[in-house]
């Protein structure tokens, strides 16, 4: 797989991690929280596997961050329009997840 393709994989997985984090935070069903958080962790672990393949430069990282934010917005509006959250949360969650990837 080429680097562009790997960037796309990272973006999709990172976006899914963030979507699940946000949904887990705002779900009105506390019983589902452990599962939703575990799902977010599973996506995170797959994101880490995909992210570890390269030493990303700053331009790549910025691109991943921007695309992931776009993806999260798209997924939340199309698949989870019933989740109430602040738009700023998306950027914050993606930043947090990117930080974890860098560790």
């Amino acid at each position, binding site marked *: 797989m080429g680097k562009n393709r790997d960037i796309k994989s990272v973006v*999709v997985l990172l976006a*899914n991690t963030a979507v699940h984090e946000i949904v887990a935070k705002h779900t009105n069903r506390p*019983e*589902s929280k*452990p*599962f*939703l958080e*575990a799902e977010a962790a599973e996506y995170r672990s797959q994101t880490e596997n995909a992210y570890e393949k390269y030493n990303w430069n700053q331009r790549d990282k910025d691109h991943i961050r921007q695309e992931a934010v776009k993806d999260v917005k798209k997924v939340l509006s199309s*698949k989870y329009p019933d989740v109430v959250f602040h738009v700023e949360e998306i950027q914050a969650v993606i930043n947090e997840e990117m930080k974890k990837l860098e560790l």
Partner: protein
Amino acid sequence: MAQILTQRENEIINKKMKGLSLTQNESNILSKSIRPKLDEIKKINADLLLNKLEYNQKAKSIEEKIKKLILNNIEGVQSIILCGSAIQTNYKEYNDIDVIVATKKVLTENKMEKRRLIWKIQDLAKKEGLNLDIQIYAEESIINQYPSSPSLIYQLKDSKIIYGKIKIPNKIELSSWDLRMKLDWSDIVDAYSTGNEIYYAIRNIMLVILLMNRKVDNYELNNSVINMLGRDLASRLKEDKASRIEKKLVLNYIRVMSNYLAAELRTNPKWGKIEILNQ
């Protein structure tokens, strides 16, 4: 010969099939005993059960090796659970053996450390000729997640505990959120994904459909994927031998189904709570 129906019940069935009228007592036996027995028989997959009951010499040796590998390398093991196709087919058809290790407490917060440990055990297993897919969780986490985790519900359905014990909750209580989250796994595949990944994406969709129908049945899950794709295409996808056009067709189907199911789960209040009794 073992008898499921008594001689009297057989006589009543014969009488009914001949179109003869039944006495009140016979009608009672038909509705209160014969029909419930036949309904129960319908639920049993005899081939699958016989396959599982068959003695397989290989099984004991494989399970002993796994137990030893896990106990020698992981501290505080509460139970070792085997699941997936190896267990479902009594070690006749499988690529790898799925192992869930439940620990008494959280093993480590360091994910890298946990991953390294899993790799180490997998390498040791390979030397013993075993291809293991290992997951490690604290027991509490498994129990908390189970009632709303579609994957765990299916994994543990036909599982085998080879060490220790774990008390799986009897009641499954899924919400539309849980199933929508599960559906999301089918959305990460695209034209660049391997056939195997696409196969599991469609299997994921079928799993959600079965849970919407309150069914937890691995045999039916596998059959429904085969019925959907056809046996040949299902095999080609699994072995990553499907053509680009075949993959594209399946991907289109995945998109349509995933969007339809996600909308149905979101908008129809009947999916708010799906209760299934774990048998």
